[in-house]
Each structure stands twice: as structure tokens, then as C-alpha cells.
């Protein structure tokens, strides 16, 4: 198990390095000068002297490999550079905002599993029945509503018309835990609409597939009760693909919370990214993209470990 984890960790670290280099290269090799791009907002050609001065300040005149080494050694120390807009250290801002985004994504993931897994099992066990058809239709609809539409309509109906909840915002947990969780619930549930439907669908088809397997029939031949068969022989085996799908979706959510954070004014990492993109603050964009991609890699690593916990064949393989 330890050797397995160590091997996977090494691969993951290698991947993070590749991603970091890739992000660096994309920014620096793409046609167009970042300094010029930054200064040319509004479509007016920038003053060449100003561009030159900015290039000098950003170290863009140094050879590419020197820039690369500087950037990479900086990363090792947790230094992501300074914002172009206000010279604020990017690492600090990320450290402040990242936990909020992780909290949102984590809450959405947990609620989606709590909702999607039991419903998926229930629908699969009554495949073709009324419950199955109703749930499947709901899932189809939920998957078709873009997340920002769900959020916007939720704000319109629940906050605006019914005045049940506040339209969004953020209060630190330390200041008011109750209010913090209440504000977390709306954006989290907005994500759950789509993610829960994904979990439901995968769980349903996975259970249907496992039900056909020989070991389920063998358990039946031993006289095991339906509840025991479903619990021990169906649900557990059916969970493996769900783990993959949820992890993959959580990964894309790390970047995809952009819309939800925007709708609900949740001051997470994604809002920061949108601001950076609008301002074309490329050190910021680079830092955020790098952090999110690394988390994505880390998530895949955790999934591999989780696999090994669920399926003994992986540990020994």
C-alpha cells in the first residue's frame, strides 16, 4: 500500500511540474507581448517607452530559460510573483481565497453523493418503473440547466420573490458560523443540481450493470437476503465508477465554480481568476491556473488511493 502510494505520488509530482512548465511556456511563447497586451487595453496602441519599461520591470528582457528558472525556484518557495495591478503578492491572495473555493466544492460534492447515490440505487432497483422514469427525467432536466441559470433563478425566486434567503455574499466562519453555513448552502446546492444528477446517472447505470454479474447470482444462491445482497454485493461494487466520475467533476468544478461564485458573490479563487483575466494580469492568471491544475492532479492522486481502498486488486496489482 505504501509503495503504491509513493509511486503514485511521484507520478503526480512529475505531472505538476509538467503543468507548471506548460503554463509558463504557453504564456511566454504565444505570439504577442504580455507587456504590450497589458498596456493596450481600450484598443489604443501603447507608448513604446512604457512597454519597454514594463518589460524591464517584469524581467521579460532576460533570456527565456533564466525567466523559467527564476519562476520555478520562486514556486518552490511558494512565491507566485506580484500582481501587475497592485503589486500585491499573488501567493497571499490565493492562500486567502483557495480554502473558500475548496469549501464550496467539497460541500457540493458531499451533498451530491448524499443525494445521488441512494436515488441512483433506488432507480436502478426499480428500473423501468415509475420512480425510475420520474427520477431519470429529473436528472435529464437538471443536466440541461446551465449552472449560472440555476443560480440566477434561485436568487430570483428564493431571495428576490420569496425572501427566504439572502441573495449571496460571504461571512467568515470564525465571525458567524451559522450565517457562514447558510450563505454556503445556496451556491453549494446550485452546484448539486448538476453534479447530483451526474452522480445519480452513473450510480444508476453502474448498479444495473453490477446486478447482472455472476457474483450477485451466487450470493442469491447462498440464500442471502435482498438487503444484504444490495449492500454487500451491489452498492459497494457499483461505487467504483462513481468515485472516478465525482472526482473528475470536482476537478473541473475547481475551475468551473467561476460562474457560481460570480452569481452568489462568493469571494473564492474563481472570482479572483475572472478579475485577473479581465485585467489581463498574467502573473495572476498563471498562478491561479497552476494552483487549480495542481489540485486537479492531487485529486486524481487521491482517487487512485481511494480506489486502492475500495478494490483490493488495485493495491496488489
Amino acid at each position, binding site marked *: 500500500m505504501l509503495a503504491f502510494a509513493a509511486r503514485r505520488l511521484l507520478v503526480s509530482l512529475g505531472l505538476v511540474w509538467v503543468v507548471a512548465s506548460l503554463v509558463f511556456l504557453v504564456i511566454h511563447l504565444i505570439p504577442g507581448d504580455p507587456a504590450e497586451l497589458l498596456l493596450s487595453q481600450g484598443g489604443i496602441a501603447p507608448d513604446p517607452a512604457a512597454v519597454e519599461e514594463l518589460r524591464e520591470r517584469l524581467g521579460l528582457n532576460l533570456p527565456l530559460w533564466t525567466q523559467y528558472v527564476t519562476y520555478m525556484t520562486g514556486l518552490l518557495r511558494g512565491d507566485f510573483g506580484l500582481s501587475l495591478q497592485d503589486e500585491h503578492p499573488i501567493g497571499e491572495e490565493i492562500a486567502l481565497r483557495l480554502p473558500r473555493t475548496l469549501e464550496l466544492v467539497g460541500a457540493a460534492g458531499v451533498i451530491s453523493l448524499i443525494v445521488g447515490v441512494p436515488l441512483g440505487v433506488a432507480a436502478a432497483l426499480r428500473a*423501468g*418503473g415509475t420512480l425510475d422514469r420520474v427520477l431519470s427525467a429529473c436528472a*435529464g432536466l437538471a443536466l440541461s440547466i446551465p449552472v*449560472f441559470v440555476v443560480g440566477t433563478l434561485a436568487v430570483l425566486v428564493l431571495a428576490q420573490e420569496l425572501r427566504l434567503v439572502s441573495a449571496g455574499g460571504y461571512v467568515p466562519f470564525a465571525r458567524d458560523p451559522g450565517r457562514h453555513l447558510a450563505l454556503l448552502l445556496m451556491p453549494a446546492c446550485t452546484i448539486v443540481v448538476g453534479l447530483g444528477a451526474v452522480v445519480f446517472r452513473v450510480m444508476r447505470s453502474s448498479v444495473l450493470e453490477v446486478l447482472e454479474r455472476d457474483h450477485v447470482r451466487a450470493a442469491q*444462491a447462498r440464500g442471502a*437476503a435482498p438487503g444484504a445482497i444490495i449492500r454487500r454485493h451491489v452498492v459497494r461494487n457499483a461505487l467504483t465508477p462513481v468515485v472516478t466520475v465525482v472526482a473528475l467533476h470536482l476537478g473541473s468544478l475547481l475551475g468551473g465554480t467561476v*460562474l457560481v461564485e460570480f452569481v452568489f458573490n462568493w469571494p473564492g479563487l474563481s472570482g479572483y481568476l475572472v478579475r485577473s483575466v479581465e485585467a489581463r494580469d498574467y502573473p495572476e492568471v498563471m498562478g491561479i491556473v497552476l494552483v487549480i*491544475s495542481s489540485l486537479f492532479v492531487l485529486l486524481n492522486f487521491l482517487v487512485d488511493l481511494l480506489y486502492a481502498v475500495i478494490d483490493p486488486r488495485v493495491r496488489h496489482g
Partner: protein
Amino acid sequence: MRRLSIRALAAPGILAAIIVLAAIAAPLLPLTDPVRQDVANRLTGPSFTHWLGQDEYGRDVLSRIVWGARVSLSVAFAAAAMAAAGGTLLGILGGYFRGVVELVTVRVAEVVLCFPPLLLALLVVTLMGPGAGTLVFSLAILFAPGFARVAYAETLSARSLDYVTAQEALGARTRRILARTLLPNIAPPLLVQFSLTVASAMVLESGLSFLGLGVVPPSPSWGLMIRGARASMEQAPLLLFWPCLALTGTVLVLNLLCDRLRDLLDPRGKAAGRPGFLRRLVALPAAPVGALPAAPGLLTVEGLTLEIPSRAGQVQVVRDVGFSLAPGETLAIVGESGSGKTLTGLAVMGLLPSAVKPVAGRILFTGRDGQVRDLLRMPETDMRALRGRDLAMIFQDPSSSLNPLLRIGAQVGESLRAHGVTQGVKARVVALLRQVGLPDPERAADAYPHEVSGGQRQRVMIAAAIANHPRLLLADEPTTALDVTVQAQILGLLAELRRAEGAMGMVFVTHNLAVVSDIADRVLVMYAGEVVEEAPVTDIFAAPRHPYTAALIASMPEGEAERLSAIPGAVPQPWAMPTGCRFAPRCVMAAEACRTAAPALVEIASGRHSRCLRWEEMA
């Protein structure tokens, strides 16, 4: 099935066509200019001239919705088309040439999948600035790997098809092979991928526009309209509703179309119905006339007939099968694949697949309590109490019959726990594993199925089956999936168990006559769902009284026949049974009479039955 799926395609297909046509025809429709402002009448509700009202600049909402469809759909289609062309090319090249080409095409494309999609789009927007062109480009990059993956996988599988290999051997040029044989094969999955991509591209486009990083105002886009309407949500909530409805509706239609398309191309995913162990109904509700006989031996099967639905209506896969078994006796049911021997065994256990329905007959079983029950008419809950206690079964493939995620001991112990044993389960399990000859049973109990060999897995299955000293053991091809040497060991184990459990009857289902002589007392030969011969084991080898039995013996490698001969032809499909004797088309002795009337099973001596008109000529 196929026609049904095509009809299911109609509704979403027509809706999608209407949406696309409306978007194409937008300039021709009598709509107000979508960008003409009328600030004096901003945020006015629906009126005769503006059916859906006017937005925050007084622009006509209906017109903006229709024109917005044009923008959204053209961005989505352009991106999907670019992604499809590029991705498919990469996938085919990678899959066809493999090696270095695979590395630089497919693997590089997969790097893109390492980034969360919206993040990647934002990265492109940073570099290129917002706008429709950027959108199409970034979405194309985003979706191309999906196409590359599909095309790659399909190319790999199409490449290994025999006819492609044959063409290569004939010296056909690579480019021609690719164009002629691969493209038609990978077209269907790519079509599904394409409609999926259009829907996802629309969602991403509207999302980016909603953030103000996609389509640039004043061009109408649904995402932009939602962004605009959000600001004036308090005064005019309806403004928010229309673009949300348009966007969700369109995505829903595209998703539906995609689902139906997938069902049409790959009907395997269709739901099969409720699993057997959740059925509470009795298989056959009406009890037959007459009381159950007091002592019919251990097991008596009478007139068992099983049906499955097929293209040609209900067909009988097992017809009028009957046999009986005394305590301590072993009956072998022999036949080729498709003879109905396995279904007969599963019917006794009440484990028939949900599609197979018993329509006639009874299965009388004397339980440990001496009571005779008709297993075909027992409720599932009562049946469950018998399974694993009075009735036990061993299956063909021990690897798939054990749950890979549970320890061996837990699975053997399940037999005991299911029937009320709670004390000393662990010790009993170890004793059982020792009894079936597993080396180091304590360790084996803690091992997972993949940690022991195939033969040992079958020993585990046997241990679980005999845990409660069953009255009847059904063994369905228990040695087929094993090596020849292991086969002999398992047969030896079963013979040993018979001696140890004196009163246990056994039904041994196999297609291999060779193993029958070692283990069985009597043999039942089945062909195409019918019993064709029944005899004591010594008689059947010495003097078969049905040409099918004779042919089976002649095809045994270990048999005494001078020449090994295969039976020509194959078992007829259940929906295409010959009118006369079912074996006649393959029979060397078939006469005219055999092809006109179906022969009955007749008793030709005490304990001997044959379904052949000309059995006397075989003497």
C-alpha cells in the same frame, strides 16, 4: 426495438430542427432589429408590438432571443465542427500508426483534458481577448481531445477487425484503408460525440458571455441577456426568465437528441427490469390439480417448460423436461450450448434470468423436514430460505462468481449467516475451507478472491455451497473454466463430498460426456430444449439409443470411438425449430418420417427413455 428507437428520435429531432431553422431564418423573420434601442420604453412588459417585452435598453426581447440563438448556435456548431475535424484526425492517426505518432497526437491531446474546461477557456481569453472568434477557437481546443479519444478507441478496435488486417495483407494503401473501412465504422460514435459537444459548447459559450468574457455586446447572446436582466431583476423578473428558458430548452432538446441517438446506435444500455431477488410474486400463480405426492424421492421435475420473448413472439427454450432424483444419487444433464440444460438447473434454484418465464410443469422437492414443495410455485421469500440450505449451486466461472471486493471467508460465511448461524462462523468457515482441500485455510479465509488460483476459487465456491449440508447440490459446468489437471481435482473433490454427505443428491450439468462417466449414476441428454435420452451411466456409453448421444460419444477425445468425429451443423435457434425431430437436420440416421412429426419421449426399457423413432435400429 430499432424502429421504436427511431420513433423516439422524432420528437427531439423535430424540436432541434425548429430551433436551428429559426436561427438560420432570423434575418428573414418579421422581427424588430435586435440592437435598436428604445430607452424611453425600457423594461416595459409584453405588448402587441413586443410580444415578450423590452429589455433594459428598450430592445425587443423576442427578436434578441431568436438572434441570440443564431449567435449561440453558430459559435457552438463552428467550435464543434472544428473540434470534430481536428480531434478525429488526431485520433485516427494516433490509433492507426501507433508508436511515436500516437504519442504526439493522442497523448498530447489528453494533456488538455488535465485542465478544468472553463479554466482553459479563460486562459485562452486572457491571451487573445474576448470575442466570438476567441470563443470558437478556445471551445475547439477544449473539445478536440474528446473526439480524439473516441476516434482513437474506435480506430484501435476497427483496426483489429479481420477485414482490415486482410486488406493490409493484400497490400491496400493505408490512406484507402482509412477512408474506406475506418470512417464508416467510427461515424456513429462520433455523431453522438458531436451532438454532445454542441450542447456543451452552448453551455460554455453562454457561461463565458454571462461573465462578460464571451460574445461582445451589443450582439445578442443568451448568456449576455441573462447578465443584463440580472441587473434589473427587481423591476422586471420576466426578462430573466425568457433567455433562461431558451437556453435550458435548447440544451435539453440537444441532450435528449443525443441520448436517443445513443440508444439507437447502442441498444445494449436499455433497462432490463427489476432483478429477480426483489420479485415477491410467485413464478406460476395457479396451482395444478391434484395434491402433491407424499414421497417423490428427492427431486422430481415434470413437464418443465420455459419461454423467452423474441422477435417472433414467445419461444420455448425448454420444453416438457422431466426427470427425477433419489437421495444420494447423481444425475448428469448433458448437452451442447443452447440445449437448455443450464436453464433447467437455474429453474430448480429459482434463479432464472428475469426474461425467462416458466409457463408449465412443476418441480417437486422434498426438504429436510420431509415436506414436498413445488419450487416453481414458491414465493421468493420461502425460496430464499431453501437456497443455500436445502438447495445449493456451484457455478461455471468461479472467478466471476466471487465478489472481488469481499474476503473469501466473508463470502463462505455468508451461507451460514444467511441461515441463522451467528456463533462460531469463523471457525466453521476455516473448517469448510479445510474440507474442500484449500492449503492454509486460515490464511485463505482472510484472502481476497484474486489472491488464489482458479481451481482454489472453485473450491471456495464449493465450500460456500456445502456449508449447510444441502439436500441437493446443483453443479453447473463446475470444471469448464478450469485447466484439465485442475478439472480432475475438482471432480475428485465432488466425488469425495458425495461419499461424505451420504443423502445429498447432485445434478451435474455439463457439455463434456467424458467427465460424466466418473461422477454420474444416471445421464439425461438434452438437445434444443428437450430431453432426448435418459439412461444409467453404464448403458449410455455401451449402448446409446439416440443418434445425438451416439454422436456426442463419438466426438469425445477420450472416447472409445476409432475416429473422432464432430457433429455437423449447430443447435437450431429457439425461434427457428425444425417441424419434425429437432435433431433431424444434423442426424445421420434421419428418415422422411423424422422430418414430418416430432417424436415423443418413449420408455424403451426400465429406466431408459429415448426420443428417436429409429432407436430400435441402434441396438
